[in-house]
């Protein structure tokens, strides 16, 4: 089956109007192409044709928590958000800390009818932060990075060894930075809104101390480190300074850290309970500034599905996280592009090219010969997010009821029109 995307504007390193012909899993031609050349024609007049998005941070919950999400449901939800490749975190049950589990997740990913799925392995056995996991064997089994996400590697000696050892295999180490002694049993950002709601706060210092430590280690060892879900102005500044000195540090943020603040917790909405917590407007502004000046390399979702019962309970007891696949691109478009902060090619860099490069995955450009992971996005459509209508199992969506601009119209993975 061949697909012709007709009349759209191609967003890649630049913007240009052209038709795209896809056949046999590849982009075969870009230019002025008559409709007769394809079996399926997509009318993309007024729409944007872009490389498929790559999410380097999501939770698919399988094995162990299939009531929240499965690799299949997650990978299918991802395509409705424009994602063609997703890398899933290893905090499953059992955790992905050995080659057998990594291979299982890879295999289940290949069976799934959605985005391509790549497992991330643990940094330490059992995510306990003590002994290194078998990174070499897991890499052979298909992992694209290592992370103890959800938990910080608190012991600095262990982190030092992890950064050095991972270098051996050219594996990216993704760190969830959090000084657990400071965050303690906090559930929301420490600040006036925590005080108003009477909820226990998590100081920005918890995240920033972890980042500062990682920067020092990366600099000392001349090793790469990638900081997960940056949420504070101080974190952005630490990373900006480190990059200026030439430290090999990269980082990601998530849409909720530039579109939402801790005012969301005042109603005890457990979908606003996220780790790191939603911060204040000044932090959102700093995150946007970091995106604009290149301090922040990637926008990831941190898609964190949970069941309705798990979220509909006491705020302190509800698990952290919001789902994110199906809202990320609209949020980024609304808060970054439509508002004039960055242009579409920059967004493609943040949500497709850079994460692919960091994970060692193919970087897709809309040109002949490339793997046909392509999406069609309508920037003029507006949508009201309805959690109940999301495609994943977890409906715990912070953005339920939000009006957003831009909608994914089609997602093509390896030449297959998924929707």
């Amino acid at each position: 089956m061949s697909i012709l995307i007709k009349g759209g504007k191609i967003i890649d390193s630049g913007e240009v109007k052209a038709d795209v012909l896809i056949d046999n899993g590849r982009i075969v031609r870009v230019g002025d192409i008559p409709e007769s050349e394809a079996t399926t024609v997509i009318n993309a007049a007024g729409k944007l044709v872009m490389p498929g998005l790559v999410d380097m941070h999501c939770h698919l919950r399988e094995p162990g928590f299939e009531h929240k999400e499965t690799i299949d449901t997650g990978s299918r939800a991802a395509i409705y958000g424009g994602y063609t490749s997703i890398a899933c975190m290893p905090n499953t049950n059992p955790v992905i800390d050995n080659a057998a589990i990594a291979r299982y997740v890879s295999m289940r990913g290949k069976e799934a009818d959605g985005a391509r799925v790549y497992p991330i392995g643990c940094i330490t056995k059992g995510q306990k932060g003590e002994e290194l996991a078998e990174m070499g064997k897991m890499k052979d089994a298909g992992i694209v990075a290592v992370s103890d996400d959800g938990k910080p590697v608190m012991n600095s000696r262990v982190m030092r060894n992890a950064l050095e050892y991972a270098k051996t295999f050219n594996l990216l180490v993704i760190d969830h930075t959090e000084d657990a002694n400071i965050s303690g049993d906090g559930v929301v950002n420490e600040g006036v809104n925590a005080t108003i709601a009477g909820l226990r706060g998590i100081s920005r210092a918890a995240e920033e101390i972890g980042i500062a430590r990682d920067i020092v280690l990366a600099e000392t060892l001349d090793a790469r480190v990638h900081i997960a879900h940056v949420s504070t102005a101080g974190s952005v500044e630490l990373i900006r300074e480190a990059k200026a000195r030439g430290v090999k540090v990269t980082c990601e943020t998530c849409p909720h850290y530039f579109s939402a603040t801790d005012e969301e917790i005042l109603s005890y909405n457990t979908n606003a309970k996220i780790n790191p917590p939603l911060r204040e407007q000044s932090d959102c502004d700093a995150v946007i500034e970091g995106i604009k000046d290149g301090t922040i390399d990637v926008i990831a979702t941190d898609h964190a599905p949970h069941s309705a019962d798990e979220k509909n309970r006491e705020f302190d007891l509800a698990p952290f996280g919001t789902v994110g696949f199906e809202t990320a691109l609209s949020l980024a478009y609304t808060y970054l592009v439509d508002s004039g902060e960055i242009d579409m090619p920059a967004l493609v860099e943040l949500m497709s090219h850079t994460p692919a490069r960091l994970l060692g995955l193919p970087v897709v450009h809309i040109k002949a010969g490339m793997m046909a992971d392509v999406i069609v996005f309508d920037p003029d459509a507006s949508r009201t997010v309805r959690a109940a209508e999301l495609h994943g199992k977890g409906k715990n969506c912070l953005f339920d009821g939000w009006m957003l601009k831009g909608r994914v119209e089609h997602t093509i993975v390896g030449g297959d029109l998924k929707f």
Partner: protein
Amino acid sequence: MMLRKKDLLGLKDLTKEEIEDILDNTAAMKEAFVSGETLDSLKGKCVATLFYENSTRTKNSFETAARFLGARTLSISVATSSVQKGESLIDTGRTLDALMTDIIVIRHSMAGTPALLAKNVRSSVINGGDGMNEHPTQSLLDLFTMREKFGTIKGLKVVMVGDIKHSRVARSNLWALGKLGAETTVVAPQTLLPKGVEELGCEVSYDLESAVAGANVVMGLRIQLERQKAGLFPSISEYGDEFGITRDKLVACPDALIMHPGPVNRGIEITSEITDGANSVINEQVTNGVAVRMAVMDMLMSDAV
């Protein structure tokens, strides 16, 4: 008089007028209560107390108030109920609904829990204290006590000293006193102050002796001994020296009313001399607590008819 609300979750959501209506109604209820005259405005109704945290005075106060208004009471003791079998809060609430309960009074160690319950049950929910968030009926009884003594809340200078950070009483009082036009000052070591508390409209001081100058009311808050173990202050002895309410520290306000939500750690947050002194209204607060809870339940139920 009625309250146009299904639930009483906190004072931050009430208007000045709503708070004043409750205080007005409390005056009538107190008259009945102290004269031993039972009322029937809750006749045929059922009030359940659902306490996930220990409490003597609040629970007994609500139950006394409910019976004085002619209601049946149902006391769910969490230690022996199906909560121990893992029943969720929402399911427990729905069970109470099915038992034809009209009011559920809930106390819980976690903030926001009464709001969660209220969203999921038909019964009216009254917050009997939730984590560090609010304890609205305690604050209302404090306000009523102040109004009884001074005639008005407006313009009063109220000093609260102690563990402001973890105190739901302090939060409810900050909301309500602000709405009614009192000036409030909170006094505590910085580790026991919540971030941004000054944005709630109070003064902040670290020195009790100077903070009480000209105060009409000095309110002590209970200090929990586990805060010392958490490293928030070095010792009970130092806490008492620096922040305990003593005669020496009250020189600048010899006539100030002394209040405390109880139970009192005598000799730590407040000396026995002051607790039992002429200016102390700590026991009157307990009596007023019943009246205020009668008023709240009466008003929530007259709305429901």
